[in-house]
């Protein structure tokens, strides 16, 4: 037992204890987010202004990493190509996810609940397993090629199915599809049914109701779904590595390699900052669509 001096308790002591407990709580509440989220981010931004010389990180502020990105003919094209690829993923997931979300929203009762579960559960299923499964389907030795060979449709295994950028885009789309379905479903569910009745009563055809009422009102869901899938695809480096092969080089992979084999953390950080800027633009754009400013 540690020695504790006994002092008579008074109400001011109790109040003091309460105050110190409150300070402790405040300290804890601020401590974790600031120490493990904000500070690391600040250090990461700072790191992007350092540079490497003879395998040593020199902690001097310089913009040479950013200059290298724009001057080197390799990085900008990969950056642009990766952004386009992720845009493709966002478009594919929304185009395929919208009809599914619409169908789910138009179902009723138990069927609706069950079907929604079916399309949402893959969200919690292991990401690495999905990559593995898709890769084993698409590979030259994979299931799809075997079926096609058995059916006699092809005699040589199709090699364009895997280890290129299209394979990366397809795999990412399949993995991220539920991220598009869910927000669109939520947006469709939020549309008041009496608005749709009003639209029909006023003589709109189902196509007109969809185009002029449902689609604009579900735009928020589309924006959230698209930005979710875009951001997640942009930051991925495992999927491109697993199904992209040599030619499926994406920006995420380049960043990861800077922290591995290339061992140039400052340059990797600078590349990540550029990625973060794109992400911020996307998030702000989504925020503007989701929370439109109402004019009085």
């Amino acid at each position, binding site marked *: 037992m540690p020695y504790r001096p006994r002092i008579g308790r008074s109400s001011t002591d109790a109040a003091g204890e309460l105050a110190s407990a409150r300070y402790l709580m405040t300290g804890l509440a601020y401590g974790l987010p600031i120490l493990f989220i904000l500070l*690391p981010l600040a250090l*990461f931004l700072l790191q992007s202004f350092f540079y490497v010389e003879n395998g040593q990180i020199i902690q001097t502020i310089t913009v040479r990493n950013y200059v290298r990105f724009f001057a080197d003919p390799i990085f900008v094209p990969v950056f642009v190509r990766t952004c386009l690829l992720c845009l493709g993923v966002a478009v594919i997931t929304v185009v395929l996810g919208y009809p599914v979300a619409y169908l789910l929203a138009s179902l009723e009762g138990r069927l609706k609940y069950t079907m929604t579960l079916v399309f949402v559960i893959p969200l919690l299923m292991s990401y690495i397993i999905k990559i593995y499964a898709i890769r084993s389907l698409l590979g030259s030795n994979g*299931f799809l090629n075997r079926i096609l060979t058995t059916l006699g449709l092809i005699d040589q295994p199709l090699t364009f199915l895997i280890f290129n950028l299209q394979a990366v885009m397809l795999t990412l789309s399949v993995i991220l599809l539920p991220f598009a379905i869910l927000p669109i479903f939520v947006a469709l569910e939020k549309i008041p049914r009496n608005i749709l009745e009003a639209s029909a009563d006023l003589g709109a055809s189902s196509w007109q109701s969809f185009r002029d009422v449902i689609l604009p009102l579900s735009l928020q869901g589309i924006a959230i779904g698209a930005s979710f899938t875009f951001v997640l695809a942009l930051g991925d480096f495992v999927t491109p590595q697993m199904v992209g092969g040599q030619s499926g080089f994406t920006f995420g992979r380049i960043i990861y390699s800077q922290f591995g084999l290339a061992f140039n953390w400052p340059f990797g950080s600078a590349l990540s900052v550029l990625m973060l800027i794109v992400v911020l633009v996307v998030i702000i754009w989504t925020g503007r669509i989701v929370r439109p400013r109402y004019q009085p």
Partner: protein
Amino acid sequence: MIPLPRVVTAGLVLIAGFVFLLLYGPLFVAIFFSFFRLERNEVQWDSFSFSAYEALTHNRGILDALMNTLVVGGSAVALSLVFGTLLAFRYHARRSTANELLQLIIFLPFLMPPIITGLSLLIFFRQTDVDRSLLTVVIGHTVFVLALVYRTVLARLQALSRSLAEASLDLGASHFQTFVYVLLPNLATALVSAAILAFALSFDETLITLLVTGTKSTLPMRLWAMMRLGFTPDINALVTLLLAGSTVLSLLALQFVRLPKPR
């Protein structure tokens, strides 16, 4: 929703079926080949066996990885529950600029690509001379799932009537008693579902883990390493077990979310 022409409905069902195939087809194939063997491009229908599963139980690497994953998941859930609840209470108690900023910081790891969260932590640990270990993985996972726990608890708190806590305080209960006997029971289902979801996220987390882990690997990393070598029945068996596990977990979590509100 509006009544649709038959053709359109049929089209929607067709697309949904296609999406279902995309989502589940690859998984079914993996499950199938955990039971059957393939020889010379032909499925051996008489080769049904559990041998792949049996082999798993002798695989030390996988068992160790499973243990690591459980330890990391459990710790991350415990930490995120404590801090998520604390932060949700603070935000709920008083609207202030500081609390809004704090909320924004909490959401950052959820909004940013995981690679950014992972890299920041990696740089942070190196600058502060912390060796990479399971502890750094726990921190990474806690930061990652914190927003989810925070959001779930806050939503429930905001749905609760303020008069509950006020009545308890008026009747002479201390703040602590009010928290334990009045608020906590009302938050229980929210906490349980948040815990399950957080555990599921942690169990599956790959990108942050790859960056902040030391020599010990979690299950997704182990799987990744195995997959790079090729496809074996063991992997398919492991995949099947994990899929079963995550399905049960998500059903469980949803059960708690859908529980009727206490009167």
